[in-house]
């Protein structure tokens, strides 16, 4: 029998019973549909998470200060200086290491910023010049802090995009040049910065909600000592740096560099008053957990496809039984066993493949709907589409072979006698 005739015949039989064919392939349609949608949504979530991690910079090592809850001092001494965190010496030592391009330092001003009597969720940071570039920020108004600002410890600041709304009234459009008053200081606003990459770093609440001054200014105006007062106590915190953004030259050996920094800090710090992150490693870990997630998804998909396949096998077996007379007649007309076998097998494969294609449509629709109504990102990947079609076809072969074999091995006489 010619292949074309075989295809025609199988397709013809499927289209004869459109509703039945549709119902038969529902299992596959929903199986493939849910898999496509799940993969699209998890893929979207994964991309978002990866973007966020990547926004930290894959050539960065982030070292940060951890505040000590219980300092190694006695309660009998209610007023003492808590001395912890990353130091100037640490910075010098790290700068001297191999594979280091430069370090951006960030120091939390530990200030309460208020507007009238309201305490704002706005923080002030002392930063070094590379902050703007290293944290993927851009200036949308005015200018960034200049070398003379740093050199002269100028009383200037750059504010995050969303600070303006919190500090000033709506009508006040031009705020460059305005003076920002904070406890113990006043700063001229010289620029507004914005971060659109979604960079989030341990220790900075939100880049767009913060105020930035030159590190030299911070030290001069406020000093590195901060007082914490409470009932019958006064604690002085001495912290030199809160965050180092360490840019490396070669990301290939970034883990090695991070280990060197770790062992350096282990040696020079008695307490574990610091922490370290390597975004690239986080990225790899995240990818790994995503892969596990994908494997779990795949297993669920496999189960639903097996269930769908068994449904199809059942219907095809019934179909073979129902069409015994046709099978017998075809055999009498000269159909070989393999002609009958392929007729039914191709019918099943068509059925599952068309179910797969419909399922892909359903899956794309579902993920688009989820994105539309819940805002969760989704990303239908090409390989999930190609994979679904292939697997649908394979399901057809797996579950179509037995019914087709049954059809081909009908005894022609018995088949002819069937009603």
């Amino acid at each position, binding site marked *: 029998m010619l292949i074309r005739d075989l295809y025609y015949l199988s397709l013809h039989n499927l289209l004869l019973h459109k509703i039945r064919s549709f119902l038969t392939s529902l299992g596959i349609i929903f199986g493939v549909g849910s898999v496509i949608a799940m993969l699209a949504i998890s893929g979207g979530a994964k991309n978002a998470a990866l973007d966020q991690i990547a926004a930290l910079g894959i050539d960065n090592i982030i070292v940060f200060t951890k505040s000590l809850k219980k300092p190694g001092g006695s309660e009998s001494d209610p007023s003492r200086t808590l001395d912890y965190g990353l130091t100037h010496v640490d910075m010098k030592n790290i700068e001297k290491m191999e594979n280091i391009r430069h370090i951006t330092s960030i120091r939390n001003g530990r200030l309460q910023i208020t507007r009238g009597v309201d305490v704002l969720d706005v923080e002030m940071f002392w930063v070094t010049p590379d902050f703007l570039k290293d944290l993927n920020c851009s200036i949308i108004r005015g200018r960034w802090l200049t070398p003379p600002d740093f050199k002269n410890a100028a009383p200037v600041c750059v504010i995050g995009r969303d600070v303006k709304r919190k500090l000033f009234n709506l009508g006040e459009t031009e705020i460059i040049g305005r003076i920002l008053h904070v406890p113990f200081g006043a700063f001229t606003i010289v620029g507004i910065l914005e971060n659109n990459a979604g960079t989030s770093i341990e220790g900075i609440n939100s880049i767009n909600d913060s105020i930035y001054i030159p590190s030299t200014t911070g030290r001069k105006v406020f000093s590195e000592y901060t007082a914490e007062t409470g009932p019958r106590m006064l604690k002085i915190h001495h912290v030199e740096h809160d965050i180092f953004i360490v840019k490396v030259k070669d990301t290939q050996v970034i883990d090695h560099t991070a280990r060197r920094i770790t062992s350096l800090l282990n040696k020079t710090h008695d307490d574990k008053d610091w922490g370290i992150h390597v975004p690239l490693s986080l990225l790899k870990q995240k990818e790994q957990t995503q892969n596990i997630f994908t494997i779990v998804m795949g297993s669920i998909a496999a189960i639903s496809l097996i269930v769908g396949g068994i449904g199809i096998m059942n219907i095809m077996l019934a179909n073979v039984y129902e069409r015994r007379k*046709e099978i017998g*007649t075809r055999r*009498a007309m000269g*159909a*070989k066993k393999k*002609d009958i076998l392929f007729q039914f097998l191709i019918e099943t494969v068509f059925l599952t493949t068309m179910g797969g294609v419909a399922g892909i449509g359903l899956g794309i629709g579902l993920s688009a709907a989820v994105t539309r109504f819940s805002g969760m990102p989704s990303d239908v990947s090409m390989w999930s589409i190609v994979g679904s079609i292939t697997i649908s076809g394979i399901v057809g072969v797996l579950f179509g072979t037995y019914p087709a074999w049954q059809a081909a091995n009908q005894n022609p*006489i018995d088949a002819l006698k069937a009603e």
Partner: protein
Amino acid sequence: MYPQNNKDNAVREIIRLERLEKTYYLESLEVPVLKGIDLSIYNGELIGIMGVSGSGKSTMLNILGLLDVPTGGRYFLDGQEVRNFSDNALAQLRNAKIGFIFQSFNLSPHLTVEQNIEMPMVYAESPKKVRRERARELAERVGLGHRLKHRPRELSGGECQRIAIARALGNSPAYLLADEPTGNLDEKTSDEIMELFTGLHQEHHTTIVMVTHNPDLESLFDRVIHLRDGRVV
């Protein structure tokens, strides 16, 4: 174009049965149906097989048609013993040499008349164009050239059987096997179908083996084989 043997008018034996037996084995029971049939069929013959119901007529026809295998004796088709043929070879022989006609027509209800007639030609892998043309000719020959695009349920029983006959002729088989082809038809339609058979036989010397239990038809056959109790009498 039609099964024809008039080129060589020499009588040729196309089928020979020697002590052919068929026994059904049911659990503990042996049911002998054919108990040693000796028979020769020559080309161009119109043969009737008669006998009471259950005498083994269909069983014998199915064996002749290579759908069933004997349990004893020998069957020669064109001088070759069929016992040695593979399932594929048998299918090919059925396709090329044998035209089947059934009591209940066995047309595919979902295919058009044209597609039904084409069926054996599809298995012979003849090209679409050739099939179409041949199907039209054959439909015209059985007087239904105007019904090509119809479906079987739109036709009467007699018309269905005509289509089935056209279908059987598709690959110009060496002989037609018909199992009670008029069994489902009224008398008038029966006569028309028999006329078609005798017409084919006279015009083209088609070899036809027909099972019937209608004694009125006896006069139409060149030869009648009576089966009784599994033997030719």
